[in-house]
């Protein structure tokens, strides 16, 4: 077991320092920008969703509505992608895509129907609608507080430039320029004339207080906004936990299965060879001891020699099956090329991976290709296979295609299902397209989490 890390002492700055620093922190400004942007973006998303869906449903009867509604599913996802990006950039919340994977159906309506029945789609649309009222609220609060605070703080600086020598609020919400300065107490009245330095100072202090308090109000609003993004754009948390638990359980099963296989290979293969090697050497020793049959002894030693070499080869193959050393040393390109040259079905390998992914991802990709090529050799009756591996951003895509008879499936216990578990344990996705008659395409996407 690893020891727990030593306790880290976090230095908390003096609360006063924190309070004074807050208005100048990058985080505060990023959050403010987010809260302000909520309104214009909310207007856009609300308008698009309402217009699109009313148009779509309204025209449904003429069938023109169907493509409009399908297009809306894609538009909504696009806006969801934009919003997740905005939240990541400005709120520092990184939420995963909540959608369930698109089905690998070869009928054109497979994907739209699946998206239409995916709860994540509708939850996202609710978010797009809610963004407008929420945006109005956050915009108003954030804008008012910053502007009010700043204008009061700097009042003495610009008061002389105002059209009237003094300036006042007659009552809340109604700014008036009155020759006599009235600070309206709620409910009106004649108010309060500001004309002494002390009164100016009081207003400046109020402005400063508002500016110091605003970052915390902004933070509170931003936190509420974060919950909203996580809850509505990040999908059902419960479901994700369930998937995680499932894939972890599958990974544990997989590890146990691997250990059983290694045990079997050691016992049935290598150990058998060593036993027969020992027997042959024992017999040779016997013959040499009694010195009756030197030629027979020679022959037995020769057989033992062959047996020993076969045992070495088996250990080597076994070790490669557990983890190929060339993968660690040289990466996917070298390891997959080597795998392809061993494949009975001619395989072309193209690897376009500039930056090496984590070892666990490389290993998963390697075993995907290894299992896929083995399957192709066994079942596909194919004449060739194409392996493409590409890394774009933080996703590694592996594609294995063949020109065989198809009909591969992900039934429980098959090698492909094992692959899905292996890939799932890394939060990746495996898609299989294998209609009867072929061809078969296996697609795997694994996040590299750089």
């Amino acid at each position, binding site marked *: 077991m690893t020891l727990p890390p030593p306790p880290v002492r976090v230095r908390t700055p003096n609360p006063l320092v924190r309070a004074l620093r807050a208005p100048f922190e990058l985080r505060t400004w990023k959050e403010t920008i987010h809260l302000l942007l909520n309104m214009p973006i909310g207007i856009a998303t609300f308008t698009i969703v309402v217009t699109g869906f009313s148009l779509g449903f309204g025209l449904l009867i003429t069938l023109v509505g169907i493509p409009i509604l399908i297009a809306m599913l894609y538009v909504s996802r696009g806006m969801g992608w934009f919003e997740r990006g905005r939240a990541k950039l400005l709120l520092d919340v990184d939420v995963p895509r909540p959608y369930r994977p698109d089905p690998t159906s070869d009928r054109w309506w497979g994907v739209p129907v699946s998206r239409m029945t995916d709860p994540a789609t509708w939850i996202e649309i609710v978010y797009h609608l809610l963004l407008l009222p929420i945006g109005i609220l956050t915009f108003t609060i954030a804008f008012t507080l910053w502007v009010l605070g700043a204008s009061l703080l700097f009042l003495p600086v610009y008061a002389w430039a105002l059209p009237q020598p003094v300036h006042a609020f007659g009552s809340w919400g109604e700014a008036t320029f009155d020759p006599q300065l009235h600070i309206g107490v709620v409910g009106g009245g004649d108010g309060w004339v500001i004309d002494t330095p002390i009164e100016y100072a009081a207003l400046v202090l109020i402005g400063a207080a508002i500016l110091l308090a605003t970052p915390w109000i902004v933070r509170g609003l931003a936190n509420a906004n974060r919950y909203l993004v996580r809850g509505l754009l990040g999908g059902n948390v419960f479901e994700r936990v369930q998937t995680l638990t499932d894939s972890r359980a599958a990974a544990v099963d997989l590890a146990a299965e691997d250990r059983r296989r290694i045990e079997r290979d050691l016992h049935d293969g290598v150990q058998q060879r060593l036993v027969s090697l020992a027997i042959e050497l024992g017999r040779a020793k016997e013959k040499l001891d009694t010195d009756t049959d030197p030629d027979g002894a020679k022959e037995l030693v020769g057989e033992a020699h062959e047996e020993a*070499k076969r045992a070495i*080869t088996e250990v*080597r193959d076994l070790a*490669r099956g557990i983890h190929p*050393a*060339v993968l660690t*040393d040289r990466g996917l390109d070298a390891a997959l090329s*080597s795998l392809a040259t061993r494949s009975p079905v001619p395989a072309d390998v193209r690897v376009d991976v500039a930056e090496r992914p984590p070892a666990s991802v490389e290993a998963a990709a390697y075993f995907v290709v290894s299992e896929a090529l083995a399957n192709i050799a066994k079942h596909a009756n194919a004449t060739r296979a194409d392996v493409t591996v590409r890394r774009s951003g933080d996703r590694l895509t592996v594609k294995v295609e063949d020109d065989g008879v198809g009909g591969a499936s992900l039934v429980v216990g098959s090698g492909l299902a094992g692959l899905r578990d292996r890939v799932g344990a890394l939060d990746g996705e495996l898609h299989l397209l294998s209609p009867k008659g072929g061809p078969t395409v296996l697609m795997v996407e694994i996040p590299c989490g750089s």
Partner: protein
Amino acid sequence: MRIVIAEDGVLLREGLAHLLADEGHEVVASVGDALGLVEVVEREQPDVCIVDVRMPPTFTDEGLRAAIEIRSRWPDTPVLVLSQYVEERYAVELLSSQTSGVGYLLKQRVADVRDFLDALERVAEGGTALDPEVVAQLLARARRHPHDELTPREREVLALMAEGLSNAGIAQRLVVTEGAVEKHVTSIFTKLGLEFAETDHRRVLAVLRYLEDRDP
């Protein structure tokens, strides 16, 4: 011959040393890591080095890198690389600069003592020794772009040429006369459109280039 061994497994190191001593060779130094190897080669200037690929401290490919360094610093010092596993990629790296005085074999080939000693001598004399498994990988690649004009026998001869064997060596392996081998070799070179090579290691180079070029 004066030989330097770099191998971190004590059993194999001692086993190799005994085997070589039995043949009348002198093991002038044996080291357990790649850094020590380069120093020892500089000091001893051996006739040939035997180097394990995987050694401390990282247990990845330091032996291979040391071999490449030795080949570039002392081009006259032959190196025979041994490994638990062979990969075409390592062979290409090792042979990229030159094929004379280079060997790359699976460790288990040591068990076939006669063949191993032949390969060692070949490398020490400036020849090449490439493991049959590497050759098989290279041929498998070339298979993608079939050179079916070769007869099965010629393919066998091609593989043995790639391993670095001389005509005499090939004749012995295939149990045919040297004259027959020469005929096959001539035919292969003509069919593949290769330039005839004077020495064995140049011939290896020609064959490897041919197989490599077939790589897309």
